């Protein structure tokens, strides 16, 4: 085109060039279009990847909460232990000492579990809630007192997580020799194998020592930094006193560094030692032997011999037995919640076929609990439902009436303009501010019960109101004026025209907006925390004035708990929340599709 002045165009005064692609400008334009398309595809790709990653991680996490484990065991309901008889009223039976009974049952099965640590560890195999469930069962059927029955005891969170492989699996070290075990003079067990079966374990132990040494050296290197900083400060110090102090600090940091290096060196020397037995402590890997009907743990290991201690009862001595298995667990005992002894017990139970895995329906039927294996979302679900009910019954009528008034009746003046602008502003107010308002006004001035769905519902209604009003106004405005004219033309009043004709036509749009607002409210956490719906509530709320919590707050609370098992439950609760949100949005879409009118 640049040379169009030189060339006389064929006609019209402007040369469009050839129709075939390839001219400079056309190429540029196409390249620009292509680039834009690519940017769009990349943007969508990033968004999709983020969504997949998010959902993937949540669902993977949540999958661990899908099942729960039970320990199936026979138990004799001894009236002596629980201190009640079949004639005792049921509610007293339920409160009887079934905990002692359960404890006694477990100790009878693993008789070595005496001593405080072992006793406590044994108690942790079964959930604390199991004895309450047993109590409920007996209360419902007092005839069982004095009888022996089979009962499924809920496994504790630690047991459950171990069974789901959360603490790493026990690995069979594939021993091939014949095992001999006898009790030594010092009380330790002497273990020996006819081949070098412990060699691999020994290498692993040494490897672990090297790793520990490495991490110590890394720590030591960090001390270097501290030394440098203190030295610099000492150089810049204003007073002799300060300088002295900084130098002391530098000195102590250097000493610490030296200690760490020494320690690392010691570990390395131990690991490098070509021969000799190596101690296995709880910071190193666990090496366990199943033999003679029980479990042992190695405390000192050499290639073919080892020292061990008993984990469960083993019939001793064992001589040249080929019926044994050597297990290793990579995760040091100190780094996991389940102890070696507990692993031995759980594995024993599993070998006896007394571990039962079932679908975790408890998650939907139980309310909150401190014990993760007992915790469920029923309370939060009901709380959410009640809160949403309050929110809907307040926000919907107020929002719709407000929208109708503003759209159909309000005079257009500065005051209504001001109100309009502020409604739009209200939609952008951070939700926590509504929480503050709820706290200051509804709880403190009007005395609405705190932590109750009523208070939460009111606060969320305020938050949802602008969304509903804006959506409703847009929907009302979308109704063609000809319909309104038609109604007015046959002598309908403004109110009749609005409620008989405009509102029904706008309803799908209004409901869509309302559902989206409600979905927002359903996922809201911050304002509810302000009004105390973050409390720990074990009861399922029965009315809108009972203390309650809601799903997102439950998620927030669980995510804060230290127990590992809550991770899975948090993710599962998020999944439930997501399902509800997706459902609500689906309804909104269906409504929109179904009732969309074309004029």
């Amino acid at each position: 085109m640049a040379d169009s002045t030189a060339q006389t165009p064929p006609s019209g005064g402007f040369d469009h060039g050839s129709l075939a692609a390839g001219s400079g400008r056309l190429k540029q334009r196409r390249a620009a279009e292509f680039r834009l398309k690519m940017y769009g595809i990349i943007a969508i790709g990033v968004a999709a990847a983020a969504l997949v990653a998010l959902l993937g991680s949540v669902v993977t996490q949540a999958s661990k909460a899908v099942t729960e484990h039970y320990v199936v065991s026979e138990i004799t309901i001894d009236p002596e232990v629980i201190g009640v008889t079949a004639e005792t009223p049921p509610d007293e039976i339920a409160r009887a000492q079934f905990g002692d009974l359960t404890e006694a049952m477990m100790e009878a099965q693993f008789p070595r579990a005496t001593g405080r640590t072992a006793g406590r560890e044994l108690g942790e195999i079964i959930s604390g809630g199991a004895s309450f469930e047993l109590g409920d069962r007996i209360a419902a059927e007092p005839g069982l007192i004095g009888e022996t029955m089979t009962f499924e005891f809920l496994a504790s969170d630690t047991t459950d997580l171990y069974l789901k492989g959360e603490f790493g699996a026990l690995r069979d070290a594939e021993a091939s020799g014949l095992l001999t075990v006898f009790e030594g003079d010092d009380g330790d067990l002497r273990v020996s194998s006819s081949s070098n079966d412990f060699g691999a374990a020994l290498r692993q132990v040494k490897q672990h020592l090297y790793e520990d040494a490495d991490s110590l050296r890394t720590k030591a290197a960090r001390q270097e930094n501290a030394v440098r900083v203190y030295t610099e400060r000492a150089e810049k110090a204003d007073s002799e006193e300060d300088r002295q102090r900084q130098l002391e600090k530098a000195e102590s940091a250097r000493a610490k560094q030296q200690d760490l290096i020494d320690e690392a060196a010691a570990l390395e020397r131990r690991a490098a030692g070509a021969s000799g037995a190596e101690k296995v402590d709880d910071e190193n890997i666990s090496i366990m032997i199943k033999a003679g009907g029980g479990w042992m743990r190695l405390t000192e290991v050499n290639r073919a011999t080892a020292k061990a201690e008993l984990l469960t009862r083993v019939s001793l001595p064992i001589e040249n037995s080929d019926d044994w298995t050597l297990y290793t667990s990579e995760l040091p005992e100190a780094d996991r919640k389940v102890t070696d002894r507990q692993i031995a017990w759980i594995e024993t139970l599993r070998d006896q076929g007394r571990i039962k895995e079932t679908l975790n329906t408890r998650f939907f039927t139980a309310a909150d609990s401190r014990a993760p294996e007992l915790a469920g979302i029923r309370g939060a679900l009901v709380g959410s439902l009640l809160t949403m009910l309050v929110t809907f019954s307040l926000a919907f009528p107020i929002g719709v009436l407000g929208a109708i008034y503003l759209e159909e009746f309000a005079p257009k003046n500065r005051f209504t303009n001001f109100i309009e602008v502020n409604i739009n502003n209200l939609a952008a107010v951070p939700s926590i501010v509504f929480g503050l308002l709820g706290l200051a006004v509804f709880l403190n001035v009007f005395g609405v019960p705190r932590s109750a769905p009523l208070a939460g519902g009111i606060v969320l209604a305020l938050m949802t109101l602008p969304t509903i009003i804006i959506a409703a106004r847009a929907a009302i405005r979308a109704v063609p004026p000809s319909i309104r004219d038609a109604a007015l033309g046959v002598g309908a009043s403004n109110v009749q025209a609005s409620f008989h004709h405009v509102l029904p036509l706008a309803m799908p749009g209004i409901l869509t907006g309302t559902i989206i607002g409600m979905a927002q409210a359903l996922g809201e956490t911050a304002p509810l925390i302000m009004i105390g719906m973050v409390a720990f509530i074990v009861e399922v709320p029965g009315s809108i004035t009972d203390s309650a919590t809601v799903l997102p707050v439950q998620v927030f609370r669980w995510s804060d708990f230290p127990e590992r098992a809550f991770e899975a439950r948090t993710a599962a609760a998020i999944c439930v929340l997501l399902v509800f949100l997706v459902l609500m949005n689906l309804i909104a879409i269906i409504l929109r599709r179904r009732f969309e009118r074309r004029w």
Partner: protein
Amino acid sequence: MYDTPNSERDVDQKEIKFSARKVQVYYGDTHAIKDVDVDLEDKTVTAFIGPSGCGKSTFLRCLNRMNDTIDVCRVEGDIRLDGEDIYDKRVDPVQLRAKVGMVFQKPNPFPKSIYDNVAYGPKIHGLARTKGELDEIVEKSLRRAALWDEAKDRLETPGTGLSGGQQQRLCIARAVATEPEVLLMDEPCSALDPIATSQVEELIDDLRSNFSVVIVTHSMQQAARVSQKTAFFHLGSMVEFGETGHIFTNPNDERTESYITGRIG
């Protein structure tokens, strides 16, 4: 129908339905209608003609106070229906609109069944006490709108499913269902094809026996065909008002003549 209107003979015996004096309409600062004086007779079809934007629709909408719905619109002057000032403070526009029905430019049936479309007006005005009475009103109105034969088997189907011409006749049925005394029609045929137009025109001629009809139209042939009286509007003023035959054959004002002969408009 297409002959020269021959209804001039009996116009003088009819009583005046609407009488407007010195009507002014303002849209904000715009003076849309200036000093309109007109008398509309009962059982007569009066046509308002004029170029686009001349104010004929605005004036029509003054007659049943549909302009009330427009915030910036202001009406001054005196419009009387049967001697009653319709802009009097005590007059309820809703009651007025029951007496003065309206048919709009675009067919605008409610998105409801044909039956409900027609029955809506009688229902809200309490014209029928029983379902039977309501059925009768619906039938009568649909017959008056010449839609009964086409619609009687599908009364429960949505009114929006009818063809354009049928929809417009449905709107007319809806308007006559409240037994109005005056029927205002704002370009009722502009969205219709010629066949539907002729059906509606025939209908208008029939309606004349019961109602006073005021029709705004862009088509001079239509005005000539259906009306007995014609008013010519230009730039917000009513230039000429008289017998349709007179206006079309021998207009007094040269602007009327220019418009009729196609020189302005």
